[in-house]
């Protein structure tokens, strides 16, 4: 199949093009990194054997997935958007920041601040969140969570501490 300029621009609009590309890159990375470990022989396999093999399989699968973007898309499957209709950048950031807040506060101040921060940050992501509702939710989950995990399940994490030095 010859790629003209128009079909190429068609291609980059397809979701499968990126899906295949990602698998290809991942596979290449795994295979190359895997080759740096000892692969050994079939009879005495080294640690690098399986990862290298998997990497190459992933490269092949990536090529097939990417190639399927070449065929004209079926009318039923019109969803070629990578981002959803209404991207929720702020909410996504909040959700991903929530574990980070948990780590930072947990390391330095203990379970109560960590829980509060974790829930608070995550709840900010909702578009209807108000400061009051967020604080109340975080407080309720903190009270419940600390009792459950610290007292009943004995998770070894100080409830409240001060290690300073952020």
């Amino acid at each position, binding site marked *: 199949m010859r790629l003209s300029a128009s079909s190429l621009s068609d291609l980059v609009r397809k979701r499968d093009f990126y899906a295949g590309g*990602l698998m290809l890159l991942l596979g290449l990375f795994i295979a190359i990194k895997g080759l740096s470990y000892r692969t050994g022989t079939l009879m005495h396999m080294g640690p690098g054997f399986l990862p290298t093999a998997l990497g190459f399989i992933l490269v092949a699968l990536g090529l097939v997935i990417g190639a399927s973007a070449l065929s004209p898309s079926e009318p039923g499957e019109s969803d070629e958007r990578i981002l959803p209709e209404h991207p929720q950048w702020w909410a996504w950031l909040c*959700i991903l920041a929530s*574990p980070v807040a948990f780590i930072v506060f947990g390391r330095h101040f203990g379970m109560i601040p960590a*829980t509060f921060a974790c829930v608070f940050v995550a709840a900010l992501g909702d578009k209807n969140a108000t400061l009051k509702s967020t604080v109340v939710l975080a407080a309720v989950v903190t009270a419940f969570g600390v009792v459950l995990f610290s007292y009943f399940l004995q998770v070894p994490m100080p409830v409240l501490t001060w290690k300073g030095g952020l």
Partner: protein
Amino acid sequence: MISTALTDLWYGFGVALEPHNLMFCFIGVLVGNMVGVLPGMGPLATISILLPLTFGMKPVAAILMLGGVMYGAQYGGAICSILLNLPCHPPHAVTCLDGFPMTRQGRGGVALGLTVFASFVGASWGITEMIFLSPLLVRAALQFGPAEVCSLMLLGLLAGSTLARGSPIKGVAMTVLGLFLGSVGTDLETGSERFTFGMTELDDGIELIALALGLFGIAEFMSSVNQVAPINTRYTNVGLKDMRPTKADFKQAFFPMWRGTIIGSLCALIPGTGPTIASFVAYATEKKISKHPEKFGTGVIEGVVCPEAATHSSVQGDFIPTMSLGIPGDAVMALLLGALMIQGIVPGPQLISQHPDIFWGLVASFWIGNMLLVLLNVPLIGIWVKMLAIPYRFLYPSAMFFVCIGVYAANNDFFQVGEVAVIGLLGYVLLRLGFHPAPILLGFVLGPRFEENFRRAMLISRGDIGVFVERPISALFIALCVILIGTQIYVRLRGAKPPIKPALYPPAGARPGDLELPTAAE
């Protein structure tokens, strides 16, 4: 043979009825039912959240509880789809088709009542199947050498990734990715570290809980946040009195229920075809043999009862390959198997003889759990219905806390909390690119055992790869793999859509508009 099975079952009831185990079974089904009702939370996320809580428990109690979550969620999911038209969990997507119209006609209570009954019948059949089939499978599987185990795993992985929802080739890619993720960490055979990039925290490999919570927790929250429409609670006013079906309803539901049960139990035997496919096949079959197929979709009882019975029968049947061969059919089973492995129990055909308390206790607890669920669902229906109104904006931040603390508690290490965030981001990217992350978990759990057996097989055969087709049983599995791939390619080349299209299922917390009429009904 029947008498030994019954003696073992009796022993199992003894285990399951120990107060301690009974309590955890009850907690499991209760939480499962609750979570099944909540729109936007799936059984996978719930089991992963509860997994860290089981570390301090005995293995029997842990597996009883986690198993209870799984089938409990199926009961709850039916409530959600019948009363709200929300297919929160994939197997219940078809239940919406006739369940919600029944609700609009004011017969939602009857639909729920019959669903509970059909579910119980379906589940009981699935359990019976498990009691008699598992020991047979085990007897065969104990003869397997490494080569057979290897090709059986290959078959399981291929079936799990190609027959599940979404594009088969993308499913295979996810399985391969999962196998790779399973190889991260110290290589057991040679002791060398792989893909750790100097991080000592990765020496023990990627944490199963971090992987599961990242893929099914954080990634799902990212795709559902601010996307969940406010729930229409207009029809959710259902009380106990509304649930009683009339004699005519009952008569109408009786045969569809049995047909659904049989279809579900057959689907459970094919690895990779879980409850979702079972419910679609059941609905399509029921419509085909019905005397009035045109009425389907307008609220007929058969359209609710048959897929629900199939779902439950196949949910229980799915435990057969998982417990007797150590080969999970889908991600939920992989997670349960992972929970057993964390407890130090090696899955495989020797499990039943080495840990009879786990296997027979689990089987007996299914019955107890299903009875508890009937008791929970019938009189307490009002409470479940009220839970439907909990908004997502309270749900996901609380769940985020459980994710963080759960991952932390696995190792008492903050590193894993960071790991879960990274995996969550990766999972969301994959989701947006049209991959379904469930097969990753399948590959991850089976990966290390696959590598070990592959190595052993190669060592025994002195590096001859032909061993896989020379040994008859192994050759049979390989042939099945080839047939599986061959049909997929054939279907694709012919351009024909496969008869079942499970890709219908939108991610958790979907909007009702996402549910198109399934092609399965055609």
